[in-house]
């Protein structure tokens, strides 16, 4: 009997091994498929360039000490046009170097989007999982809460929260977390409910796996791709909404952030100084576009059935 058990466990190990190989092979295939779409590749290239710019910011431009996230002010060179020596992209009315803002803005945006995406995924996945697994009244209540959160338009909700908390970059992060977790809760709940009905989950249950084991081993890994797609799209959306809040004036003035810089550049527009708003705004656009392209490409490959909504 014990011999029997031993051989069967060896057999299962062998199965796991090949299952791993299958999974690896599938992942490789997915990557290949993603790279087949030219627009996805374009998006990916822009994403990589943006990330490089964010990571190498201290090398590309000399950090402004003591706080490199603050714009350096060169009052003597205020209102310089692009291609002025020392100010490749010109300066704002208040002597802020646009190139510095563009480069360090990438770092600010990366910080913003990474923090918000991580927090919203954790919160959303947890709440969605609870709703899906527990079901019943708990599910009903949680989903009504989600509905209420979804009934306030995104930007206006974030705007109100950031306004109440007071203007600062940290509060923008908080506001975005409160607004953006909802989608993950919905996605996760749907996934849990869908996967719960699969045969392999029944099989695991019959074999005596606990609810927690089933969740960790079967449900969570299989819900990965839709969450991943949404997270990629949100890397772009968060910067888009965050920059809009900054533009309206909810960040600290003077930080190296694209929305703040566009807002600062507005003052020179009527006098024909177009550059201070144009370049940082272009960065927001490229950032959001790149992550949207990659997210769409991922979705096409990972989850071909869902339509592109919104």
């Amino acid at each position, binding site marked *: 009997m014990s011999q029997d058990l031993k051989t069967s466990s060896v057999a299962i190990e062998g199965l796991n091994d090949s299952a791993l190989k299958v999974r690896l092979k599938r992942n490789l295939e997915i990557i290949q498929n993603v790279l087949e779409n030219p627009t996805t590749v374009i998006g990916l290239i822009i994403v990589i360039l943006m990330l490089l710019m964010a990571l190498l910011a201290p090398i590309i431009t000399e950090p402004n000490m003591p706080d490199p996230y603050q714009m350096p002010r060169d009052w003597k060179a205020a209102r310089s046009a692009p291609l002025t020596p020392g100010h490749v992209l010109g300066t704002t009315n208040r002597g802020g170097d646009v190139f510095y803002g563009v480069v360090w803005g990438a770092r600010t945006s990366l910080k913003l989007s990474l923090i918000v995406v991580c927090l919203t995924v954790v919160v959303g996945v947890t709440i969605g999982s609870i709703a899906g697994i527990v079901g019943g009244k708990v599910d009903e209540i949680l989903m009504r*809460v989600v509905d209420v959160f979804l009934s306030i338009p995104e930007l206006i909700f974030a705007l109100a929260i950031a306004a109440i908390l007071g203007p600062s970059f940290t509060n923008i992060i908080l506001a975005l977390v409160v607004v953006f977790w909802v989608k993950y809760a919905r996605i996760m709940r749907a996934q849990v409910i869908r996967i719960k009905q699969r045969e392999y989950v029944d099989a695991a249950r019959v074999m005596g796996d606990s609810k927690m084991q089933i969740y960790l081993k079967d449900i969570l890994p299989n819900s990965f791709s839709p969450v991943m797609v949404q997270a990629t799209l949100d890397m772009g959306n968060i910067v888009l909404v965050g920059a809009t809040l900054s533009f309206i004036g909810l960040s600290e003035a003077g930080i190296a952030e694209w929305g703040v810089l566009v807002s600062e550049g507005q003052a020179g527009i009527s006098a024909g100084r177009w550059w201070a708003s144009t370049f940082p705004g272009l960065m927001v656009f490229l950032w959001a576009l790149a992550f949207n392209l990659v997210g769409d490409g991922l979705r096409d490959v990972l989850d071909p059935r869902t339509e592109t909504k919104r």
Partner: protein
Amino acid sequence: MQIRDYIIRRLLVLPVLIIGTSIIVFALTRIGGSPIGIYLSHEMNPAEVQEMKERFHLDKPVPVQYFYWIKGVTQGDLGWSGVASAPVVDVFPKKFAATMELAIAAGIVAVSLGIALGTFAGARRNKLADHIIRVVSVSGASMPLFWFAILLLIIFWVWLGWFPIGRSDPNLFEAIPHPTGFYTIDALLAGNFAAFRDAVWHLIMPAVALGYGATAIIARMMRSSLIEELQEDYVDAAKAKGLAERVVLKKHARRNALIPTVTVIGLTFGFLLQGTVVAEIIFRWPGLGRWMASAVLRGDQATIMTYVMFTSILFLIVNLVVDIIYANLDRRVVLGE
């Protein structure tokens, strides 16, 4: 489920959502602290401060304050706007008309342009025009409105001088009555053509800026659903019957492709509504959005609460209407889920 039952059920959920939203909005503003500040001045002594607190029920527990707020709202008391230096109720209608005029104009731009571009691209799949329109519509979802609006401003206001900013030429509009608050309609009612031209002229740039994102979304949906329709058997049948390609496209495929597009049009309404905040700041449009933006920067709670509540309710109702239209257009839609 029958359509009637579906509508009734959705109508029953609506108040629940509205109450939920009001709780969130109220809780949110109380996180920011008591709004007593705007009612006080430096000359008041503690007794007077206490009196003010009692007068506005701010000495009561927060849940009780919520009910006083709701009671006030139902009686038309939306509080005092520090930004406008007037009761919110008095300022609201005029600003609302300004914002709706802008949003509707942007909606007209988005729907007409979106459907036209989407049809054009879908009927010429994988040709040059299709590729160009696809790039435009893909970029639409990623376009920061504040940037696009500023680009338009730089090109058409600063460089070319074609379009003005603001809402109107005050000289023209002081003279005519404002029964609706919509300047284009007011001008027409007054029979003043110069004023009408002026109002339209002021509308074009902000409407295009605001409508661009929605145009892109609609065009994208229209294109993909038209392509799907054109692959259906009935299209071949219609062609085999001898109908001209143009007729098949217009009378059959486009009509069916419009069904999913309608839902997307509803979704873009929220997009337009929140976009007005940014568009109004940049084009100096005196509407709700610009009011909200200054309220946000100065912590004007009554205005923020009213604005968020109002837009959410509007958003909920529009979504409901869209879902009902959609269910009526396409009987295959499974209701209830």
